[in-house]
């Protein structure tokens, strides 16, 4: 495990991730798909295996020592997650199946209780389908209105008309960082603008929480959600953070075991937070694994990770531009301070599917497609893009390997 030193070295960090040492056909793996899902460090793998070997038991519902200890480990992880994003307390941390379920929870619980025909929800043109489709489902059911913040020509949110767009809005739900463009949005400013208009502020934080320090209280947000699997934790687990008084006032979403304090033949009473929104047996070992992931990321230092990714962005932008000039088009901001290290690009007219196939011959793993953001793809005028996304364990050698592999793609097409 990496100590709390500030001498950040991704070449050392990557030794914590066993899969990154893997070779295919004698060539090293170049994993550039962390915006999709991240690789796992030994500490997460070992913590989960140790938990299942030595401590596994049901949580919250049995009196024996083994179960009490498992519950404590589970709740320790919740506390670690709360601290990681500077939540006011751990009752505000709800574990869900994934971040998509967290958004569906808000729309179905808060949305159905508070939004009627004609009410307005403001979204942006750079949202993931998970922050579009649940609202559209409510739109079909309730006849709510959806409004959109457009983009500027340099791939930022166009905030010039934000005040008028927010007029009469009940909810402003936006991403903290685009999974396609890499654009980092001014979350504090957007939350403040939402509140000034009397709207709720929801932050889809999936792309930023793994990569930069997060302080939900400083953001001034009402809700935020993110996924475990993008931040070195296991898949099958998402986190919903919400302000306690709002969560208190919301009706439950899924009904069943664990979320009740009383069930009678003529009705039920909800459990206290966070159990109220955690029906059924949760992903127990996964939560414990996520606890290990946030401890790991904290020990590396989120500010260090952010600095590393700014440096990575500078390197990638300069290197790709100097090697390929106009042959490469990067759909996203040029300023490394305003973006994460996620690069969607078009290259010499080669279709992204063909590109990723050829890159795979060099074990370079990139995503090709619409990245679950079809409205955005249409706006930037691409059916699909290739996307290379970097994380704490990626080095400049990975970026160079990407460029070398791109060269080889030109030889075929």
């Amino acid at each position, binding site marked *: 495990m990496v100590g709390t030193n500030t001498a950040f070295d991704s070449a050392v960090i990557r030794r914590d991730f066993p899969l990154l040492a893997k070779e295919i056909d004698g060539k090293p793996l170049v994993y550039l798909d962390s915006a999709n899902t991240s690789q796992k460090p030994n500490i997460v793998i070992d913590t989960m295996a140790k938990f299942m070997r030595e401590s596994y038991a049901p949580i919250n519902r049995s009196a024996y020592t083994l179960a009490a200890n498992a519950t404590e480990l589970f709740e320790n992880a919740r506390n670690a997650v709360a601290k990681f994003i500077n939540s006011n307390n751990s009752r505000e941390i709800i574990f869900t199946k994934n971040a998509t379920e967290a958004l569906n929870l808000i729309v179905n619980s808060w949305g159905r209780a508070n939004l009627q025909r004609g009410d307005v929800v403001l979204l942006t043109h750079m949202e993931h389908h998970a922050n579009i489709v649940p609202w559209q489902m409510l739109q079909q059911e309730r006849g709510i209105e959806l409004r959109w913040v457009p983009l500027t020509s340099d791939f930022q949110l166009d905030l010039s008309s934000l005040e008028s767009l927010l007029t009469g809005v009940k909810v402003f739900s936006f991403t903290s960082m685009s999974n396609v463009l890499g654009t980092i949005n001014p979350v504090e400013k957007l939350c403040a603008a939402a509140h000034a208009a009397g709207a709720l502020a929801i932050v889809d934080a999936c792309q930023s929480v793994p990569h930069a320090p997060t302080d939900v209280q400083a953001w001034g947000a009402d809700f935020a959600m993110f996924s475990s699997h993008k931040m070195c934790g296991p898949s099958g687990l998402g986190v919903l953070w919400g302000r306690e008084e709002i969560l208190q006032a919301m009706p439950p979403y899924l009904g069943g075991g664990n979320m009740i304090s009383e069930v009678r033949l003529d009705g039920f009473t909800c459990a206290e937070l966070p159990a109220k929104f955690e029906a059924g047996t949760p992903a127990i070992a996964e939560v414990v694994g996520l606890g290990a992931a946030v401890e790991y990321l904290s020990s590396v230092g989120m500010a260090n990770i952010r600095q590393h990714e700014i440096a990575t962005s500078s390197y990638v932008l300069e290197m790709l531009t100097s090697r390929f000039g106009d042959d490469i088009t990067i759909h996203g901001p040029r300023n490394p301070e305003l973006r994460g290290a996620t690069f969607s690009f078009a290259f010499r007219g080669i279709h992204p599917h063909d590109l990723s196939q050829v890159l795979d011959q060099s074990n370079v793993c990139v995503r090709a497609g619409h990245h679950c953001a079809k409205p955005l793809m249409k706006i930037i005028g691409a059916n*699909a893009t290739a996307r290379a996304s970097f994380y704490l364990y990626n080095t400049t050698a990975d970026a160079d390997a990407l460029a070398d592999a791109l060269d080889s793609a030109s030889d075929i*097409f």
Partner: protein
Amino acid sequence: MPGIEDLYREIILDHYRTPRNRGELPPPAVSCEGNNPLCGDDICIYLDVADGVVRDVKFSGQGCSISQSSTSMMTVAVKGKTVAEVQAFVRRFKHMMTLTEGDDEVDQSINLGDIEALQGVVKFPVRIKCATLGWNTLLEALKETQN
């Protein structure tokens, strides 16, 4: 890992670089759209059938080399065939792409010609949907002509 040369055979790249029958047909030709939700590729097939014979076929849309070349080769192959011949031809193709169960309805004597080059795609399972996109859209268009 299978070699990339199995996928990008010269005849495939030729049809990708110089697609045949690209364009549109006005009504009364039918048009049908198909898309691959996984990657966002879309293809539109225009089909002119008269007296049970494919008089003309064209295609438009965006996609990768495999979907574009496969559709291009398909249009060349089906033009002038009867509807029944086209259906048997599509079955033969999809069987090659290991998408149809059993051999009962597949006429193995049908010669796929250049289209055999697409057999290499089977080694790259993720791309089979690319290769069959145009063909499935053609079947939908055929249904439209029969309505």
